[in-house]
């Protein structure tokens, strides 16, 4: 509350009381504290940018502001009316907060008109007559789009940019006091984005407050009056419109704490890369993106970095033989060249892929630890036609030691393990297939430091023995410490490449935001 009052002394278009005050919001999901302490305010007629790295708590905060989640504690004050929180999206909308979400949430089976007015009605009650709706819808769409779609077109037929425009228009039509745009420009094409900003400026002149969550520095520079930075679930600072530099923002977003001691991995243990094991030529990560060429060598650890959804995930999956838009991914083993056309071909060629979402894509939650381990390699446990639990346990014991997995008994349920240990079991699962190439999709997300360190040591050890590793990571420190090379993805192409020698925190993070390389 005090910080909010203090910031009122800054310059603003129309002083008075803020239109939104967020005070000491906390939200935990089980053991995960998504938001630890968020406090900031938004003034009338202000465009307030909210920035932070992956995992800083931004999307949870947005969900709280939009009424999807209820915070554990804290208050939200909208237009002077203080309340504990919103109980539902309907409640938030009623209080004057309209949100446009990151995942374009449009109803594809409805017409444009119905999409724009979605939720504005009651259960039965219609708030606007048909003609009035059409008029208002047309006017908002014309403001936002140069070629607005017909009102009776099905939204499912529109392209992604127009669909996002519909979501934005829907929020506008609610005449909100506060408009929250969560990465709402990510799918818009350039013209629409320009028109959107003009529209935002017009609304702001009428006193509407706007929260803009974006990772594009140029947008923040262009349009934001103030910037609040979130890191690890906390609002670290609020900076004034003109009074910040990229360096400062980056420092606030990433913090000074290092997770892994830099001295721990001396330069001397850097491996020299061996023979090529994977060759990627002309790979297009998305339909219209620039082609990517890439060669992976034995004993190399390559990091894939960048902000959420910039193409690194799709690239990694393409390396695993899971879909590519044109181009080729070839496994090279001596003279044998195998195009990786499907997951099973990749597996046989010695490429193992550890998926990203542990819960959704790797864990069989009611099964035991050893059963989770043995899955892709079941045939190795056959004794006389039947599966032998003992054989599986013996195989597992080897990896348990190698990965230092902390557990009770192998027959315990996998959910008794901590996240870090679960992840180790999954990695053991794939190591048991004796791969030559190990592809890891954000393996250390949400796991404790001890488990991370174990994993880093293991990967370095395996790489020294010739394993090639490609690891997508959302953690800057991993890229700094572990990787021989780092590929940065932005807009579905490799926008920068660093070697271990020339990578630095500031340069790396700056490259995420598509800005010029910043000197350390």
């Amino acid at each position, binding site marked *: 509350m005090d910080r909010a009052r203090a910031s009122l002394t800054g310059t603003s278009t129309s002083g008075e009381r803020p239109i939104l005050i967020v005070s000491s919001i906390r939200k935990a999901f089980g053991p995960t504290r998504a938001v630890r302490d968020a406090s900031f305010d938004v003034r009338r007629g202000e465009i307030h940018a909210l920035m932070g790295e992956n995992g800083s708590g931004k999307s949870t905060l947005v969900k709280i502001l939009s009424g999807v989640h209820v915070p554990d504690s804290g208050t939200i004050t909208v237009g002077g009316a203080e309340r504990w929180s919103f109980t539902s999206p309907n409640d938030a909308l009623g209080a004057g907060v309209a949100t446009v979400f990151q995942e374009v949430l449009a109803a594809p089976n409805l017409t444009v008109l119905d999409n724009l007015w979605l939720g504005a009605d009651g259960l039965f009650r219609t708030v606007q007559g048909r003609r009035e709706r059409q008029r208002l819808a047309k006017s908002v769409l014309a403001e936002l789009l140069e070629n607005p779609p017909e009102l009776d077109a099905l939204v499912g037929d529109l392209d992604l940019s127009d669909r996002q425009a519909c979501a934005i228009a829907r929020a506008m039509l609610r005449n909100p006091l506060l408009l929250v745009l969560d990465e709402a420009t990510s799918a818009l094409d350039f013209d629409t984005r320009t028109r959107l900003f003009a529209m935002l400026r017009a609304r702001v002149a009428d006193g509407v407050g706007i929260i803009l969550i974006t990772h594009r520095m140029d947008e923040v520079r262009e349009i934001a009056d103030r910037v609040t930075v979130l890191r690890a679930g906390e609002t670290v600072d609020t900076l004034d419109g003109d009074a910040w530099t990229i360096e400062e923002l980056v420092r606030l977003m990433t913090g000074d704490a290092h997770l892994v001691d830099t001295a721990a991995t001396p330069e001397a243990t850097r491996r020299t890369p061996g023979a090529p094991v994977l060759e990627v030529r002309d790979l297009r990560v998305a339909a219209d993106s620039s082609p990517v060429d890439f060669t992976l060598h034995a004993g190399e650890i390559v990091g894939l970095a960048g902000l959420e959804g910039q193409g690194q995930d799709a690239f990694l999956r393409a390396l695993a033989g899971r879909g590519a838009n044109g181009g080729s991914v070839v496994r090279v083993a001596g003279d044998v060249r195998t195009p990786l056309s499907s997951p099973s071909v990749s597996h046989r060629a010695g490429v193992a892929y550890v*998926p990203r979402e542990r819960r959704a894509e790797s864990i069989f939650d*009611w099964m035991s630890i050893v059963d989770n381990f043995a899955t892709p390699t079941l045939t190795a446990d056959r004794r006389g036609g039947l599966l032998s639990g003992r054989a599986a346990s013996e195989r597992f014991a080897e990896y348990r030691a190698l990965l230092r997995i902390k557990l009770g008994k192998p027959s315990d349920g996998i959910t008794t393990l901590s996240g870090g240990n679960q992840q180790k079991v999954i990695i053991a699962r794939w190591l048991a297939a004796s791969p030559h190439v190990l592809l890891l999709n954000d393996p250390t997300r949400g796991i404790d430091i001890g488990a991370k360190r174990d994993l880093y040591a293991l990967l370095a050890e395996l790489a020294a023995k010739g394993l090639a590793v490609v690891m997508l990571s959302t953690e800057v420190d991993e890229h700094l410490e572990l990787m021989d090379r780092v590929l940065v993805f932005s807009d579905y192409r490799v926008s920068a490449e660093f070697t271990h020698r020339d990578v630095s925190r500031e340069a790396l993070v700056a490259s995420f935001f598509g800005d010029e390389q910043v000197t350390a």
Partner: protein
Amino acid sequence: MNASSPPQPLRVSGPSGVWTRSVALQKRIPLLQIALLIIAFVVGVTTLPGFGGPQSIVSVLMIAALAGLASVGQTLTILVGGFDLSVAGFIVAGGLMVTQVADVLAIGFWGALVILVPGAMILGGVVGYLSHRFAIQPLILTLAMGSFVVGIVRGPTGQSVSGQAPEWLTAMAAPISKTFGLPIPPILVLWVIVIVGMAIFLRRTVGGRRIYLTGANPTAASYALVNTRRVWVLVFGISALCSALTGVVLVAYSGNVDPNLGNPYLFSSLAAVIVGGTVGGGPGDYTRTVVGALLLTVVTTVLVGHGLTSADQQIMYGVVILIAMAIYGRERRISDRV
């Protein structure tokens, strides 16, 4: 902590404490069901004359065996994440094939069986394939297939349904029959063989393990290189086959076939699996289903002895299904799906 997405809530969400912990234990061993079974048995013995006698026990076991055999396929389909409502249809089709059709087409019992076995597997397999490939509710496809299979079997036999089982088959099923000189009816022996076979198959073979994996997490199973489509095709094929063969056994037991022969077994197969505690997508196994079948049979017999009508039975099945699903099978909140 750099977690950027909340961990997905467990499938059974609810207030923590005694309830959740009891549920957790209950998920590992069907203690509740066994306890209820013992209670029901004791109630039966004390309130119904002759209930505890060997004759009565054998006949209760035989009824349970028939329900149990009908539930083999159901167990598998529920483990993989579906349901099988074609049990009734395949039972009738199986029964009709070996009686009427065998007569009308003059192919005899074994001739009919030669058509029945691959036929059932293929039709079941089609259901599994369509269901997996096009993401269609297996419940609806199996309902339709059940109807379809009755139709194509009854077609050649015409309106009248008057099948008679071959004598040797009926003899095998009589409660007083013997197996190799032991005073145990062959149907029970068959059931025991099936129980053991299923236990080995599910727990100790690669195929059985793949069924569990596919049901537990189809996405992860696919990443772990399980061909989930093949699993679905095989599971539904096997289920159809088991139902058809149960129809054959049933015909032996009851002597004739009528078009509604299968319906009670559909209900009881669903109820046996659900009461036994096998959840959609696992965990569970056929042994649980056996406990469930025994429990339901004993309870039903006792209640019938006290005046329970078939109407009451239906209501009981429905309520039991709802309660069991409320314990075992709840879904995620909408706010966690945004």
